[in-house]
């Protein structure tokens, strides 16, 4: 049996890469169908199941081919194509939704959030090679920071557009705090410590329901304007890109950089104007608003926090004389699609830039051989800490958006299964491959959210198929691990190395 398996594996590995992918995905789906058929006893709608499975396979094939074409296309056409697909997707999906009865767009939104999270984990596991089994903790920190800042009973109610950036920063700080003790550890022990943190954080969150002697600021940031936030976001992205591109290496070059200087001045002016606006407005705003509170409910304990802030366009409404709250977005999936694609897009661009940056190369050096990297002048401590911080900030950002979209958060959201799902996405898609994690994350999350959670239960209403999803996941995981250990869409290291050789 062992020999047959080896033979099969060799034959499989001789196939061209895209056929391998097809076989792998097809095999995965075939296993689910066979398992489903074996499992069924009495009643099921076989035709419908085959129908929907075919549709699903077709979608995967289309995604595959698109992925391949886009890679051959010239760069500017690439961007236009991806842009068009990304912008028109919600309308196509809404149309499809009417036909199929499945919440497709909502699932795509969820999948995109998971892609953003997986990109963060990819920085830690894929780029830097640090095995993190408790990554959901950063997701939790991002989401809870958002919850604390926007839960109505806390009386802060920070604007969505500002809060998500705060969440990213807070998560990255926690990333460094959690990363610090693990720097000395390698391999399994690192995994255990991250797992332990991943278990501790939800426990702490559960127990911070009643928290005495805390301060709470009252209504102090409501006046900050939408434009300011956009500028702040732009500044942050620019800074990040410049840091990555090594335009900025220390404080001195930071001060020298003209763009940063200009933006900083604008930002200061805007902050000032925002503060002025707050003070000038007829809202009650006192400097003494930092009051002593006993028994504040910080995290809501096991009950979680609900409802949370949604993006509101108070300023736009006011300036165009529209009715109050007429632009509230609620659960409109199309709006959320664009909000998420914006955030995920930022994360993708950042991840792509990081991949090719000096820091990215340092991560890979540490991943391949820490001792050798240290010897070559790469500071492993700084490099690893940055990996944790940046990975966590992606996750914090995505967590905040997710919390707002869901309108609620609970400690249950951040259980071990989430960390593992993300790890599976990264490993199955191909560690270290930004585009791979994007495509793989989309396929796996949609497979989970649409096919396993909706299509199969529809086809087998009397069977506990939904509970079997981890059986399918386990089987698929094993299948891919045995036959294609590098993942479905691995990094094309060879191709890139050749290109780089030609360029220099």
């Amino acid at each position, binding site marked *: 049996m062992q020999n047959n398996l080896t033979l099969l594996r060799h034959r499989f590995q001789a196939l061209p890469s895209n056929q391998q992918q097809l076989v792998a995905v097809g095999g995965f789906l075939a296993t689910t169908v066979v398992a489903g058929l074996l499992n069924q006893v009495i009643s099921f709608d076989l035709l419908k199941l085959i129908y929907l499975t075919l549709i699903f396979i077709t979608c995967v094939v289309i995604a595959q081919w698109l992925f391949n074409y886009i890679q051959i296309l010239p760069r500017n056409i690439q961007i236009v194509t991806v842009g068009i697909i990304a912008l028109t997707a919600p309308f196509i999906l809404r149309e499809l939704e009417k036909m199929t*009865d499945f919440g497709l767009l*909502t699932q795509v939104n969820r999948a995109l959030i998971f892609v953003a999270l997986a990109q963060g984990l990819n920085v830690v596991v894929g780029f830097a090679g640090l095995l993190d089994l408790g990554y959901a903790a950063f997701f939790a920190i991002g989401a809870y920071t958002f919850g604390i800042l926007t839960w109505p*009973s806390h009386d802060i109610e920070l604007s969505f557009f500002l809060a998500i950036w705060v969440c990213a920063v807070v998560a990255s700080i926690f990333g460094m705090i959690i990363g610090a003790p693990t720097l000395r550890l390698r391999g399994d022990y690192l995994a255990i410590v991250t797992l332990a943190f991943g278990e501790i954080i939800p426990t702490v969150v559960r127990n911070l329901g009643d928290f005495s002697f805390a301060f709470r600021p009252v209504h102090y940031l409501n006046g900050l304007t939408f434009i300011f936030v956009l500028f702040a976001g732009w500044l942050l992205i620019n800074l990040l890109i410049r840091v990555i591109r090594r335009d900025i290496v220390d404080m001195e070059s930071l001060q020298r950089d003209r763009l940063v200087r200009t933006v900083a001045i604008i930002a200061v002016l805007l902050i000032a104007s925002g503060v002025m606006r707050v003070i000038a407005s007829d809202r009650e705003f006192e400097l003494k608003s930092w009051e002593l509170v006993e028994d504040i409910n910080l995290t809501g*304990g096991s009950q979680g926090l609900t409802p949370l802030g949604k993006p509101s366009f108070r300023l736009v409404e006011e300036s165009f004389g529209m009715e109050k709250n007429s632009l509230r977005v*609620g659960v409109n999936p199309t709006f959320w699609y664009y909000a998420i694609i914006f955030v995920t897009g930022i994360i993708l661009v950042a991840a792509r830039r990081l991949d090719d940056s000096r820091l990215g190369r340092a991560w890979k050096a540490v991943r391949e051989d820490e001792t050798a990297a240290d010897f070559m002048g790469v500071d492993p401590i700084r490099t690893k800490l940055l990996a944790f911080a940046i990975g966590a900030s992606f996750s914090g950002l995505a967590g905040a958006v997710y919390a707002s979209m*869901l309108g609620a958060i609970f400690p249950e959201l951040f259980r071990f299964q989430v960390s593992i799902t993300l790890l599976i996405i990264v490993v199955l898609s191909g560690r270290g491959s930004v585009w791979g994690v994007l495509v793989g994350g989309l396929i796996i999350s949609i497979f989970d959210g649409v096919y396993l959670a909706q299509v199969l239960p529809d086809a087998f209403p009397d069977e506990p198929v939904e509970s079997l999803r981890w059986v399918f996941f386990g089987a698929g995981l094993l299948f891919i691990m045995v036959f294609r250990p590098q993942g479905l869409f691995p990094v094309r290291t060879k191709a890139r190395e050749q290109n780089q050789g030609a360029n220099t």
Partner: protein
Amino acid sequence: MKRRIFSRLLTLFVLVVVLAAVAVPVTAQDDTVIKIYASWPLTGGTQAIGESMQKAAGLALEHYLADNNGEGPAGFTVQIVFLDDASPTTGAWDGTIEAENAQRCVNDPQCMVYFGTYNSGAAKVSMPITNEAGIAQISPANTYAGLTHACETCEEGEPDIYRPSGEVNYFRTHGSDDVQGPGAASWAVCLGFEQVYVLDDTQAYGKGIADEFARHAEEIGLEVVGRSSVESTDIDFRALLTDVRASGATLVYGGFVMDSGGPQVIQQMDALGLFSSGIKFMGPDGLASASLFDQIGGAEIANDNVYLTFPGPLPSTLETEGGQRFYNDYVEQFDEEPDPYSVYAYQSMQVILDSIARAGVAERGAILEAMRNTTDFEGIASTFSFDENGDSTLAGFYGYRVVDGGFVEGTLVTPTTHENCPG
């Protein structure tokens, strides 16, 4: 190269067309259909209760159609879409799934009423979503007070934080925990208990009712000798129960539902000899189900040791004509005893159908308005109206004790029961 791209794009186009052609026959949008999305746990620890509620809701629709010559309310075809809000990985209700269920209702133009939830914590999640969309929501089981009106132990800002639009869209046909908790405390005084140890599961419902119980207990002279919370994922409560024994309590009050640790606590109270040394257990409506006995390993453990409160008469003791019809038809059709909460699933479904009939149109706003104006409605448990908060005007609770594997002696309990004890 270009040619290859072109030919591939062509295949792609063909594929899309095929896909569209395959998908089109599934399309069916019908103006005469009204969908009701029901959301409560249909798997996990609460499965038995959820399934019974599902059957009862279906039976209510069946009875309505039978009474109106097969004609749906205002001529519409009513479909109930049953959604499960329990997570297959934990076996308990899950906020993410609940939010997704509510969003599915909001995003489906045919969904007119959101029917749920079972767990009060889940209602906190779905309420803001349905509220913003202006969809009527009616719960067959939530008793947490803060969902409809402010109370002493509720969170600051409740219930307005769940109503972003400022309108009331959430209703329930039974009472809430600021009557049930104090009522239970008063009843405990009547039963002769003097020291009580209060436990909860840290959830909205469990902690809410335990807080109400403890607050009122202190006021009426029932000494609270201990207060502790339990993790539903924990499986070993011996250390906690040692503490209970040391506290000198003669009664344990537990704010639990079936999937949050309640059965474990009762079972281990027996295993550790607490029941045999005379300590009793009192719980709220969340544990009032025959499935409790299966989960603790037999009714004989609960006999004479467990007291429960529930917002009304049990299915078998319903006095109204409709109630008896419900009970008899249910037993005949499904060959089992209905769960206590199936009464309220049936009654809520009656309210929904009545509201659609009175609204006359398939519009969310009109149906919500009609539901808000429900007055003197003759349900199977009682006749009631909705007040301005969405609460039922009839908010009584009954205390039951477990004898011979059944709930008996339903006595009306109110926060002032201790002043004039029954029997």
